[in-house]
């Protein structure tokens, strides 16, 4: 399939997504499959996104059976090295460092490559005095990389903490789903934390909790609205309003056009 075909297919699916939303249907699953590319188009100024750290790839430190092949398949299908796309972009001409986790690449799980890209992006934003925006969509740490994947939580959190202490603005945007090692590290550390409606956000997955407590979870548990009610996020933002809301927050922080 050519890139053009992929694009047009994605565009079409996005239109139908809006229609489904209007009908009040749950579109979370479809949205997860929706590509990061269309998100970039919706949020950033036209052609302003410049991808960085493209070649950072995950190794297979444990030699986990079948991991390399599985990863290769996703790399070929999605034409990207791992579950994270990072770079710089402009939002209404305000320059930002922006990263996206791709939930369609091995559940958006965080292994070496994702952790390294987020860290590199954060360090770059710190060096260039850019605001940092990260869109998360992840099932958590990437099991196949074992401890190497767990320490990514420490690495990314340390980078974010250093960035924030130096006065950087970090806006964390949570989309469906954001759980496990990603939600328990950089995704929860935003100066401002925003989330998409009905996104599943939590530490443990619903199945694990149900096993622990031995009963079914109530409806809406661990969804964005639940988190807002419990004081864990700042605001819920509709998918179509990201560009407007992010621009407004940047404006309120005195980020100027350049």
């Amino acid at each position, binding site marked *: 399939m050519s890139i053009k075909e992929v694009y047009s297919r994605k565009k079409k699916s996005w239109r139908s997504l809006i229609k489904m939303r209007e009908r009040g249907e749950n579109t979370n699953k479809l949205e997860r499959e929706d590509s990061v590319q269309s998100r970039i188009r919706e949020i950033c100024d036209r052609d302003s996104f410049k991808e960085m750290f493209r070649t950072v790839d995950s190794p297979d430190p444990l030699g986990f059976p079948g991991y390399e092949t599985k990863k290769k398949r996703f790399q070929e299908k999605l034409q990207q090295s791992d579950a994270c796309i990072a770079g710089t972009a402009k939002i209404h001409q305000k320059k930002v460092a922006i990263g996206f986790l791709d939930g369609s690449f091995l559940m958006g799980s965080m292994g070496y490559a994702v952790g390294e890209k987020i860290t590199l992006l954060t360090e770059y934003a710190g060096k260039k005095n850019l605001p940092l925006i990260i869109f998360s969509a992840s099932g958590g740490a990437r099991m*196949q990389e074992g401890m190497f994947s767990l320490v990514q939580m420490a690495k990314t959190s340390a*980078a974010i903490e250093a960035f924030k202490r130096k006065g950087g603005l970090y806006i964390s945007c949570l989309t469906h789903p954001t759980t496990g090692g990603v939600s328990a590290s950089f995704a929860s550390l935003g100066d401002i934390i925003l989330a998409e409606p009905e996104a599943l956000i939590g530490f443990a997955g619903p199945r694990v909790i149900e096993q622990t407590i031995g009963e079914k979870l109530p409806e809406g548990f661990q969804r964005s609205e639940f988190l807002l009610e419990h004081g864990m996020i700042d605001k819920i933002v509709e998918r179509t309003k990201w560009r407007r809301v992010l621009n407004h927050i940047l404006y309120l922080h005195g980020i100027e056009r350049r």
Partner: protein
Amino acid sequence: MENRTRESVAAYEKVLIARSKERPSVRDYIQHLFEGFIELHGDRLYKDDPSLTGGIAMFHGIPVTVIGQKKGKTTEEQIQYNFGMTSPEGFRKAKRLMLQAEKFHRPVITFIDTPGAYPGMEAESNGQSNAIAECLAFMSAMRTPSIAIITGEGNSGGALALAVADRICMLENAVYSILSPEGFASILWKDAKRAPEASELMKITAEDLKEYGLIDEVISEEGDVYDSIDMMLTKALEELMRINPARLATMRYQKIRSLDKAAGAAYRKGAADERNSYQSQQQGAAGQKGQQL
């Protein structure tokens, strides 16, 4: 093949040893290593998590902040301590005590022993993710020396949240992993019974992790374990307390930044190999072209 089976038993045996109720708990370590321990309770927000102990004590004349997870030995204790599964309140208490330690320039010593952070409804409602993230972010940047010792089972973010230290040590028979081998096997193979196989694959023993550079030191359990820990702490504190706190925080950042250097090296080597093979292909192609011409 035979060798492989033996190894798998060895790794899983360590898991079982690490989980054994016979092993000393944080209370024993505090009693043997420090004097004048005073326990401090509560997260100042909601409640006190009994699965995580914290307080101030003296270590050979140096005041230190001690934080440790406890599992409990009797069934009653286990229930009281929630089997060592720390709640958000516990991580927030830990962060509060670290903040306090930073203020009074006290080194922080953590004892890690947990099957993981608690995955329950209340924990989720109270922001387990946020509590873990805040705790590990603060620990990574705080301006006071820190030493982490994994004494038993160190699983998932629940262990990592207290392990982002200047010195990361493990007892010889402790294990440190992304998830329990049972959980790992059931996620990847939908079969928790394959835990022994998983524990071999996961590289969770102190020896393996030391080799990868994910931890700094393995503490021998032969002879008196308290003596060994005492020696390690004395040496580490002597080194760390000499360094300027701001510089120490920078050094810690560099350390955390390169914890995964073994994986990074594998990646860089892979990338270099790929480049080389690409170049040689190009050269080969060019050579062929030359011949054709």
